[in-house]
């Protein structure tokens, strides 16, 4: 029958010649291949002791950043939540009270900021949407947990730990 696509290939099985039929040359070839692997450098990483570095653009757990003076950058504008395709981010904004100037950079701040890690797809759009450079996906892997409620990360897990301004100035 004529081939329609013109790409038909007829497979032909030629009878094996003598050296192919006694198999031994093929076996020795195979043995030499496995023996070569015996002396190769092993690419395996011994995981718990030895951790392979992530690539530079790895997107891990979110962190809410602080500015140079240790104030939270987030102003609860909601753009991250708006840009989130998975609708994983929710927040409640509050007004900065007197005496809290050292905690929050601007008058409005996020009183509650939650990311549902079960919904998050780590696309990084929140990072791109943020006008204040307050959110980055530069953390480690989001770890496994037993209960669904434990995957809703609040500010306790998301906000960068406080740092000492005096120490920072020295570096």
């Amino acid at each position, binding site marked *: 029958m004529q081939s329609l696509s013109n790409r038909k290939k007829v497979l032909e099985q030629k009878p094996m010649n003598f050296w192919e039929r006694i198999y031994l040359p093929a*076996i020795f070839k*195979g*043995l030499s*291949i*496995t*023996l070569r*692997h*015996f002396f*190769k450098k*092993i*690419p*395996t990483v*011994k995981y718990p002791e030895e951790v392979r570095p992530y690539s530079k653009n790895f997107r891990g757990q979110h962190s809410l950043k602080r500015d140079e003076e240790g104030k939270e950058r987030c102003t609860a504008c909601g753009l991250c939540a708006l840009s989130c395709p998975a609708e994983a981010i929710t927040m409640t904004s509050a007004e900065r009270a007197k005496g809290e100037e050292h905690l929050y950079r601007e008058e409005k701040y996020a009183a509650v900021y939650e990311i549902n890690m079960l919904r998050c797809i780590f696309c990084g759009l929140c990072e791109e949407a943020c006008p204040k450079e307050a959110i980055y996906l530069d953390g480690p892997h989001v770890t496994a947990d037993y209960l669904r409620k434990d995957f809703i990360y609040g500010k306790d897990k998301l906000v960068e730990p406080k740092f000492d301004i005096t120490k920072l100035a020295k570096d």
Partner: protein
Amino acid sequence: METAFLLEKLILVVVVFTITLVIAMYSTLAERKIAGFMQDRHGPDRAGAFGLLQPLCDGGKFFFKEEIIPAGAHKGLFIIGPVIAIITACISSAVIPWGQTLTIGDASIKLQVAEVNIGVLYIFGVIALGVYGIMLGGWASNNKFSLMGAIRAASQSISYEIGLGLSLIALLMVTGTLSIGEIVAQQSGFVNWNIWSQPLGFLIFVVCAFAECNRVPFDLPECETELVGGYHTEYSSMKLGLYMFSEYINMFVSSALMAALYFGGYNFPFMNDLGLSANWITIIGVLVFFAKIFAFIFFFMWIRWTLPRFRYDQLMRLGWKKLIPLAIANIVLTGVIILIKDTFF
């Protein structure tokens, strides 16, 4: 005299038994390590330095696993199966000469447990008995898949035993004796090794030995794809462990046999020109013998991680239609050469 003889043999038996078990134990680790290196990964390396305690952990795990005997199984035979397998594997090392004579004081100790002049026949008898362990185990499980696996194993063993025997007959024609001790003693130096006079016989012997040990590419008795698991499908805990363990002991013994029959056993090149005392030569000879054995064990594992398993009809075709005629041709060829040698030289 009589008690000293018994004591000497008893010590030798215990030493050989211990060495056999330890080597079989660490063969399991070596197998996994070598597999790892050949597949570009580390083998087990968690238990102890370089994973050296891994065999102990495996053994412990085997002992503490739940033991299940199927309801319809013949309980007695089900238990005897692995026992026969391991006993036959262990006793076959009795006739292998581990070294020359060791002289301590005025007592001379021959490093061979049983110096029988039919050593080759003894080995064959014991190997033939080993099939019973597999066959009984498969039958007593009361599982049709196990039974099929056992039948495959038995017919494979019996088929390849013929090739094994025929390949050895040519060797016996050259050496003129059935005693393994004497066969080894004849191969002093390097040029007298039987591998040079019997290369084809050695090749057939190696292939058949692989099949007898149920090693890849002839590991048809175990077949997780076609028959669930083969003859040991219903076995669990240490009974399965004994089957596995007997496989490794068989591998050690057949490596020893190959080294003894074809590669000069404890003989090494220039052994009589070194000017060492007899005891030192014996000790070095034992070490050389073990080096040869380890090389063969490595070869077994090397093959395992290189070649895929045979199909059953291919296995039978290779055994009956290729190896047996080849072995007979080897016998004829050897006979002709011996005849020419005797009449003209």
